């Protein structure tokens, strides 16, 4: 399973390296969302700084939807999905591989958006460790949930409108927990961030496990 995962992850990342869609489209979209929020919240920096953790995670969530759409789209060619099915690759491995690729892309996005938040909103980091830990687990959860719904909706024509509506409510806890954890890490108030990081870990674990367990059914549903 792990070998298949590495294979699929490598394939997806190599496609990304060559096509650079995420780099040129999804990441700028994330930055754009931050910009739009700045326009919405007004020129005064105070509301922006206070809302910065939440705005960051909302931007990440929107970008996740795009990243998942892209990950599904690379396999939407004629017979590609069927080829994947009959290739003998372990479906769980395929799931993990795609999730890993999405996760890597999201992490790159988050690094850039963190910079954006620090610069554009004037936020200040109190604890880099907390920032990193929560971001890693949140990303794992997002990638897992995103891959599940992406695979589920792969064969549908209405995927573009339906996927966000399916994925985003499910990732609401990540938004909640990530925001709270980052509030602590950015010193924007709030109590201890530990329970939130724990929630992020649970979410990631649950959704990774679900994806692996249902990978076979998911592949048939596509």
């Amino acid at each position, binding site marked *: 399973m792990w070998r298949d995962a590495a294979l699929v992850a490598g394939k997806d990342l190599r496609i990304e390296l060559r096509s650079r869609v995420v780099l040129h489209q999804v990441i700028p979209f994330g930055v754009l969302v931050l910009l739009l929020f700045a326009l919405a919240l007004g020129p005064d920096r105070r509301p922006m700084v206070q809302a910065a953790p939440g705005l960051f995670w909302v931007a990440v969530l929107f970008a996740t939807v795009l990243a998942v759409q892209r990950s599904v789209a690379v396999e*939407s060619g*004629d*017979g590609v*999905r*069927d080829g994947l099915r009959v290739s003998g690759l372990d479906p769980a491995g395929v799931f993990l591989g795609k999730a890993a690729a999405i996760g890597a892309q999201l992490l790159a996005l988050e690094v850039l958006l963190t910079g954006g938040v620090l610069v554009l909103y004037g936020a200040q980091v109190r604890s880099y460790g907390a920032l990193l830990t929560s971001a890693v687990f949140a990303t794992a959860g997002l990638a897992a*949930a995103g891959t*599940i*719904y992406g695979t*589920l*909706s*792969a*064969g*549908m*024509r*209405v995927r573009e409108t*339906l996927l966000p*509506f*399916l994925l985003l*409510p*499910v990732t*609401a*806890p990540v938004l*909640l*927990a990530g925001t*709270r954890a980052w509030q602590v890490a950015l010193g924007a*108030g*709030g*109590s*201890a961030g530990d*329970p*939130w990081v724990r*929630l992020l870990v*649970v*979410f990631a674990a*649950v*959704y990774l496990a*679900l994806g692996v367990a*249902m990978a076979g*059914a*998911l592949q*048939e*549903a596509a």
Partner: protein
Amino acid sequence: MTGVPGVDAPVVPGVDAPVVHDVDAPMARGVDAPVAHDVAMPGAPRPWGPVATWTVRAMGVAAVVCTALTVWLGLWVTPPDAVQHDLVRLVYLHPPIAWVALYLAFGTAGLASVLWLWPRTRSALWDRLAAAAVEVGTVFTALTLVTGSIWGRPTWGVWWAWDARLTSTALLLVLQLGYLALRRVPGDPDTRARRCAVAALVTAADVPIVHFSVVWWRTLHQQATVLNANLSPTIHGSMAWTLLLGFVAVTLAFGWMLAVRYRIEALSAAAEEAELGAALAERRAEGLAVGSGAAPAGGPDTALLHGALATAGQPQATDAEALCPDAGHPVAVESDAGQPAAVRLGSAAAERAQ
């Protein structure tokens, strides 16, 4: 809600016979092939036996009776609360509706989805039950929010508050709407069932996580919680009985609705099959007529449909409105990537078949 005489409709002999498809016709291949034989053949649903029919009917009647009783007790007989005065009367409705929506409906849908996904217990029954449970559950969830909001307005002064309960219920409503949207995506029943079962499980896994995160959101957050929507801790006497009655009434109502909605699901699957079979038979008859040189009856639109059916193996979506100009109902010819097209015909086609 009146009784359920419709359930007692006389057993139609033809309803039991499985609908037979001609395997050669291109459409039949599309419809039959993906339906795996580990799923009970949709065919025509067996009419319910007398026991089931009587139970459902009794449930409906009991629901009405209990509800009426609850209203009478709740609005007139029971005393106003010491703290909330008359506002407490909504406790006989709102918590029961919430309980049914959050636990009964969702639990049924989740359990049914698991049973469908498990190969040993797979059956179209579970898929239909899950769909029915989610749809009825969505109505109850929306009602939970509405009654909660109506209760909140005089109690807290606001129509909405971001307390743990309301927030997680709102999220649950959106999740259920997502399931319903997924259910409407055209495709063969087996794929649709699989997708929806997976989605239901993924959603169900999310529910406890959402619950905890929202509760922590409200309690760990350092703001003072101004809103405390709890009832007085002890509820006793006639109020307790009325509350229990309220639970019973709403549960019975849910049970009846679930049964009827399930029946609707089974029937609509059969109706689609029957329409399809009839339309195919007609097309084949026309094909024979054309082959022997006679002009096909039915006019230009049936010829178009014939042509469309012949080419429908290609993954293209055709605008069926152009094909059936006199069809009163929207028709969809949709093919999912890589799969043969599935055609759902409107009532015009069915009428022509009669």
